[in-house]
């Protein structure tokens, strides 16, 4: 089994890497994080020009038609660069539209979304509820009433895909009557979270699909997010190694001391494991969809932990300077920690794995 990126995928990776490195320097990320909206209009336009808004969306509707592996490559680089962008939420909205929309709905909403001229975001979690993935309590009907929370990038989105108790998705424009968007204070200032109140709101459209149609969308979203966390870990590891080579104490670079070097080795182990789990799941999404749920939970569980523990360890390697606002590491810790709790935390995904490997199935032949 050949398990590496092919030439075309390598090209996507290096294009993304170079663009994001040039576009999101530390000062720029800080500007966006400190801004009122948290949204980078110019950066979005450039990403749209690169075709990223529709990277994994069907070619028939203006996308590039690439797979989950390419999406993972892109999001690993987004994490590495700590890019503040609605690309994740927009991609998920696009995948949901592609999975459940009618041709007419796709023409009207998916095409502009894939081209980057309209932005969508899923509105899934019911405020005050248990925030469990794929479980919703808002009543479906002619008009929607209730509050969705932890909505990604609602401030810069043009429309919401609102989930209801029957597993359906309803398209609501942000400007529709009865919609109120309130910004939350997010742990991660580079990705904004919002609450959206729907007061007797008539949806613009209701997608034809429901329930299980959106499960693969959820699993692909988990893999993309796990890829982003892997990128965060990779960058935090590189920053630590560089610092450990450079910083001198007791007359030697601190990286010569095993307390530091073994910590770095642990960070490498977790980063590589995370990457393997992510690309294994991304491969499954495209090539072996029946194994995607288990593979996605494996990847999201592992990357949930590694995505914040590696930046956390990086802060320890850096010592006092790593704890300052001036150093960038805290942004990586915050993004990683928020990612860990998004789309099902490690505990939730481990439970899915336990269910798959323990429940009912006959034990593999014992030795």
């Amino acid at each position, binding site marked *: 089994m050949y398990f590496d990126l092919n030439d075309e995928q390598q090209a996507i990776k290096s294009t993304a890497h170079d663009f994001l490195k040039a576009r999101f320097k530390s000062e720029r990320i800080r500007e966006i994080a400190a801004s009122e909206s948290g949204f980078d209009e110019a950066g979005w336009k450039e990403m749209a020009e690169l075709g990223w808004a529709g990277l994994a969306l069907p070619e028939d509707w203006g996308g590039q038609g690439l797979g989950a592996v390419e999406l993972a490559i892109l999001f690993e680089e987004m994490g590495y660069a700590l890019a503040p962008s609605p690309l994740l939420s927009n991609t998920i909205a696009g995948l949901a539209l592609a999975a459940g929309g009618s041709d007419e709905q796709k023409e009207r909403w998916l095409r502009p979304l894939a081209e980057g001229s309209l932005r969508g975001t899923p509105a899934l979690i019911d405020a005050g509820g248990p925030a469990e993935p794929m479980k919703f309590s808002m009543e479906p009907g002619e008009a929607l009433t209730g509050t969705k929370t932890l909505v990604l990038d609602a401030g810069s989105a043009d429309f919401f895909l609102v989930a209801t108790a029957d597993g359906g998705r309803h398209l609501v424009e942000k400007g529709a009557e009865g919609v109120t968007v309130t910004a939350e204070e997010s742990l991660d200032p580079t990705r904004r979270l919002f609450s959206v109140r729907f007061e007797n709101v008539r949806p613009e459209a209701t997608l034809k699909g429901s329930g299980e149609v959106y499960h693969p969308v959820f699993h692909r979203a988990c893999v993309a997010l796990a890829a982003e966390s892997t990128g965060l870990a990779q960058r935090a590891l590189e920053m630590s190694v560089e610092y450990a080579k450079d910083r001198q104490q007791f007359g*030697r670079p601190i990286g010569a001391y095993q307390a530091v070097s073994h910590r770095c080795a642990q960070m490498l182990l977790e980063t590589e*494991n995370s990457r393997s789990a992510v690309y294994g799941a991304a491969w499954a999404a495209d090539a072996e969809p029946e194994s995607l749920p288990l593979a996605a939970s494996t990847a999201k569980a592992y990357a949930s932990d590694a995505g914040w523990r590696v930046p956390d360890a990086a802060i320890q390697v850096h010592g006092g300077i790593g704890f300052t606002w001036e150093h960038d590491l805290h942004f990586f810790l915050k993004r990683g920690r928020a990612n860990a709790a998004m789309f099902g935390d490690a505990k939730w995904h481990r439970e899915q794995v336990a269910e798959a490997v*323990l429940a009912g199935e006959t034990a*593999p032949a014992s*030795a």
Partner: protein
Amino acid sequence: MVIAHGSDEQKARYLEPILTGEEIWCQGFSEPESGSDLASLKTRAVKDGDEWVVTGQKVWTTFAQYAKWCMLVARTDPDAPKHQGLTYFLMDMEQDAVQTRPLVQITGEGEFNEVFFEEARVPGANVVGGVGNGWAVAITTLMNERAGLAFGAISQIQNSLGRLSKLARDTTSNGATAAEDPYFRQRIAQLHIEVETMRLNAYRGLTKTMQSGIPGPEGSLGKWQWADINQDLTELALEIEGAYSMLARGSEHAVAGGAWQYSFLRSRANSIEGGTTDILKNIIAERVLGLPRLR
């Protein structure tokens, strides 16, 4: 090692009986005073005509009692810097000047041996990779061992995981099975997740080896991870057994015939044999991450 460093004659002579299993090999690396610091080894080989005469002692030599051949690293130039005075030999174990003595492990078995050489003889043609080049050949052996060990161990660990799941389903405490207990479910799932990452890492490592020809220091990651997982797995089995975990092989009430007690004890060596986990972390830090050496 024979593939990477052996002469054409050596390849023709040794490879086939290795593949068919006709000739068993053991690895004569570690010595009582040279464990992790392997390059400090003292076993001497002195040239005598067309032959080398070997005197010294090896230890932790797995299957030495059954082996026809020994991959032996000995010091041929005591005046050279420690990494440069070593030579790699293929030694015939079937001679009176070679004596093996089993070491009893914490499991009660004797898998490892001490091996004593009292002027044992090796033909000059049995040097691999040239006189004085033994360190490089030894490193190739170890990298292959680590890459191969981790890869080959995956199906064994998957099998153990299957047995662990069965144990969890069969063990009841407070009216529920361990397989229904949220704490055990989390831990079993985590082991599955880690085994899966290890399996995928092994494929990535294999792809890299196919591209470059020689396993890199990244193989150290797999060996480290394998040791961690195997130890966690056997610890969890004893935890699931609860108070019954006090009973070992031979006891009527021992769970699964005491198999997990044996595995628990045996797995303690996983982070020591074939390069300790602490040393593997040094290798990863220095050779993969490029961090400075302390020495």
